[in-house]
């Protein structure tokens, strides 16, 4: 190939592999300036994610894979990793290892080494290893494993250049040595098979030794490949004889046992030669905290107290900037109208766009506090503890303890929560979890709650009520799980085995990245999707025009005597126009369905538009209740308008409906994909709507009786 220009930069394709929670994503964030999600528990990354960057004259294309304890297909995310390694095209593997827990990590490394690919090992968490007195001779370890080992710290950003250099060197290394040494017995059997394959001049993409190991491991693909060929008649006895020898030597017929033994021995041997532990294992920081947080009696109450505190904070602190934002948008609406006059344009901008977007932006402070709480839960290591504490409770309701993790993500947003359910091994458990994630009120529902709670309850109670809403939502979800488990998802319990990470103090930067990314997403949604929806709702609520009515009322107004009478007439007209707009017509059509729950047509419409996105509910209410009240100077803020227009029982019933009904369109699509088809979405729709309706009906009638 001849090219006139300079030679094109080469692309190095890298598969990022390692056990869960060793800092793979964090390392790539440091190396490639990416913003992958990082958290302190196993199973943060659940689908493969690509990061590209250029350095030292090369293009790097790194695929961040879900963490795997070993190359099995225990859970969906582990299957993703195994499949990628087996089937995709990549130049080398970057194996990230937790230096503080190296023996267990090398277990996976030995498996990777038997794949016979180019590998670079990153000994990550060097900073923690130093603190814990773990001293690793990286050079020596590299010699034993036959592949470069580099010390790194993703948090302190050390060793990053070394990793890049090691990757480039390894990439350019011509041949690929196979370096790991199994036990003597094992090597002997391998050698037998290899020499046979050599004699027969077998050609293979991977080395013959790797092929021999695959044969011994009873690897399906390899068997299928050889099964068809004439050589099999000769090969089979040789492999069989090898098995007999191994069975005899290891005193077991379980091949997995034999391989696990080999891997453990390799890892142990390598650690013995290269790692020094300078400190006695004493009671660690983590142990001390756990003595309290994981205490069998006080552990759960502490968790509940912290949740309660979070919701208090959401309300108390959140409401301070809320007043400013509210005032700001009210000013903006007035300003726009003053500037443009009483025109259609002014109305679509002020009453449509600004009112709708403003209603959503209003709740940004609350959202930030909620996301901050979730980020802390995710990054400190507390998440897995709560999963542990709740496992007994969850188990009673047919849920797996690990379900807790997707369910907590569900409080932020249902979309990643549906994805996070992939960490559940069993399809039934996973489906069950998928079905109840929607019961965990997502961040976008928070504005609706804050609005209604603020309107219906006193300030002192608001935080408690908010806490109650979330808790009862979760409880309803758990009960729903029990019902589903008893009827649809019958079956045995899956084992619950989960690693507990050590506690880590998240850096300010990590928290900032996590929270600001979510806040930006919320704002971006407000500026695009919600903006469009608001304008749409404005049009649907202002058209068709009622010219005749306008004239009729115009005449009446001219005849009216008092200021008061004029106001009444104007309000009457506005209401008439609204009720006969497109939106009014749709709202009235669906009123029979909603009126037993106490909703007027406006609330009905708000719920319906909420199917697109939950933020739209607030935007719709903002537009609808803004319009009819144009002449009422006193009730400015949205909260006051709700208070003036919606009765207490109807409000409560509305909250209950919002807690339970179908998540937004985007989430529903993800649900459909993760659950495995449109029919599941159909089930979810029927299930959630029926539950929402019945419970709202009960709530409405109960509150009506009690008040």
């Amino acid at each position, binding site marked *: 190939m001849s090219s006139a220009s300079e030679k094109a930069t080469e692309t190095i394709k890298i598969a990022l592999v390692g056990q869960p929670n060793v800092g793979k994503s964090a390392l790539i964030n440091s190396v490639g300036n990416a913003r992958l999600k990082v958290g302190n528990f196993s199973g943060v990354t659940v689908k493969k994610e690509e990061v590209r960057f250029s350095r030292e004259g090369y293009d790097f294309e790194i695929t961040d894979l879900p963490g795997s304890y070993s190359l099995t297909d225990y859970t969906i995310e582990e299957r993703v990793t195994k499949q990628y390694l087996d089937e995709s095209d990549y130049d080398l593997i970057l194996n990230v290892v937790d230096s503080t827990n190296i023996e267990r990590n090398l277990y996976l490394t030995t498996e990777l080494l038997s794949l016979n690919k180019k590998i670079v090992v990153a000994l990550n968490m060097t900073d923690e290893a130093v603190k814990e007195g773990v001293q690793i001779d990286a050079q020596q370890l590299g010699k034993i494993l036959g592949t470069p080992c580099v010390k790194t710290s993703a948090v302190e950003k050390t060793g990053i250049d070394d990793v890049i250099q090691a990757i480039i060197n390894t990439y350019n290394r011509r041949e690929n040595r196979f370096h790991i040494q199994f036990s003597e017995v094992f090597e002997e059997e391998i050698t037998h098979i290899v020499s046979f394959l050599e004699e027969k001049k077998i050609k293979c993409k991977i080395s013959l030794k790797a092929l021999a190991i695959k044969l011994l491991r009873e690897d399906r693909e390899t068997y299928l490949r050889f099964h068809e060929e004439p050589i099999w008649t000769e090969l089979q006895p040789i492999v069989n004889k090898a098995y007999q020898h191994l069975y005899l030597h290891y005193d077991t017929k*379980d091949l997995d046992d034999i391989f696990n033994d080999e891997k453990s021995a390799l890892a142990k041997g390598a650690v013995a030669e290269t790692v020094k532990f300078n400190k006695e294992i004493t009671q660690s920081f983590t142990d001390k905290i756990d003595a309290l947080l994981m205490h069998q009696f006080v552990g759960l109450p502490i968790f509940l107290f912290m949740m309660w505190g979070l919701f208090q904070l959401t309300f108390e602190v959140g409401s301070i900037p809320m007043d400013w934002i509210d005032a700001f948008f009210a000013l903006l609406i007035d300003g726009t109208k003053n500037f443009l006059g009483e025109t259609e344009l002014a109305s679509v901008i002020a009453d449509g766009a600004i009112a709708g977007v403003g209603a959503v932006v209003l709740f940004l402070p609350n959202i930030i506090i909620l996301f901050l709480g979730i980020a802390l839960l995710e990054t400190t290591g507390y998440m897995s503890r709560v999963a542990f504490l709740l496992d007994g409770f969850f188990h009673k309701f047919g849920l797996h303890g690990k379900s807790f993790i997707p369910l907590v993500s569900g409080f932020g947003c249902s979309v990643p929560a549906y994805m996070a359910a992939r960490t559940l091994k069993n399809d039934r458990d996973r489906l069950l979890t998928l079905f109840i994630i929607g019961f965990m009120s997502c961040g976008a529902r928070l504005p609706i709650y804050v609005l209604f709670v603020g309107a219906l309850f006193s300030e002192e109670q608001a935080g408690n009520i908010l806490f109650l809403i979330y808790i009862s939502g979760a409880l309803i979800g758990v009960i729903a799980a029990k019902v589903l488990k008893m009827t649809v998802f019958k079956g045995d319990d899956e084992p619950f085995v989960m690693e507990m990470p050590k506690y880590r103090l998240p850096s300010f930067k990590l928290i900032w990245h996590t929270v600001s990314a979510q806040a930006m997403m919320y704002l971006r949604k407000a500026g695009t999707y919600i903006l469009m929806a608001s304008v749409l709702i404005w049009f649907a609520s202002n058209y068709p025009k009622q010219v005749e009515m306008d004239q009729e009322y115009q005449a009446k107004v001219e005849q009216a005597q008092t200021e008061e009478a004029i106001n009444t007439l104007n309000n009457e007209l506005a209401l008439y126009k609204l009720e006969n707009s497109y939106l009014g017509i749709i709202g009235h059509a669906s009123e029979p369905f909603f009126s037993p729950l106490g909703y007027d047509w406006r609330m009905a419409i708000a719920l319906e538009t909420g199917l697109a996105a939950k933020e739209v509910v607030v935007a719709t209410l903002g537009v609808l209740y803004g319009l009819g009240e144009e002449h009422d100077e006193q009730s400015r803020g949205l909260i006051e308008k709700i208070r003036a227009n919606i009765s207490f029982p109807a409000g409560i019933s509305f909250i209950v409906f919002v807690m339970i009904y179908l998540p937004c369109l985007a989430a529903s699509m993800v649900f459909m994909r993760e659950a495995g088809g449109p029919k599941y979405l159909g089930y979810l729709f029927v299930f959630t709507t029926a539950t929402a309706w019945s419970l709202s009906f009960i709530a409405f009638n109960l509150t009506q009786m009690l008040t």
Partner: protein
Amino acid sequence: MTLNELQKGQSATVTAVDANRELKNRFSSFGLVKGVLIYTECHSLAKKTMEIRINKTRIALRASEAEKIEVVASE
């Protein structure tokens, strides 16, 4: 005795893992294999779930899984 019978703070050596293939592989990738030393860190209410430590790895498991692990308690 089996792992779930251990008290909080006790340590023990694993003598056998009697689980199906999948679970056994999972255990062994956590380092839970014959011959290792285990520390019992804590129990949840009614001993339904327990946390153990092997070297530096902390693992949560249910009593129903812990039953499958034979141990000999150390002094």
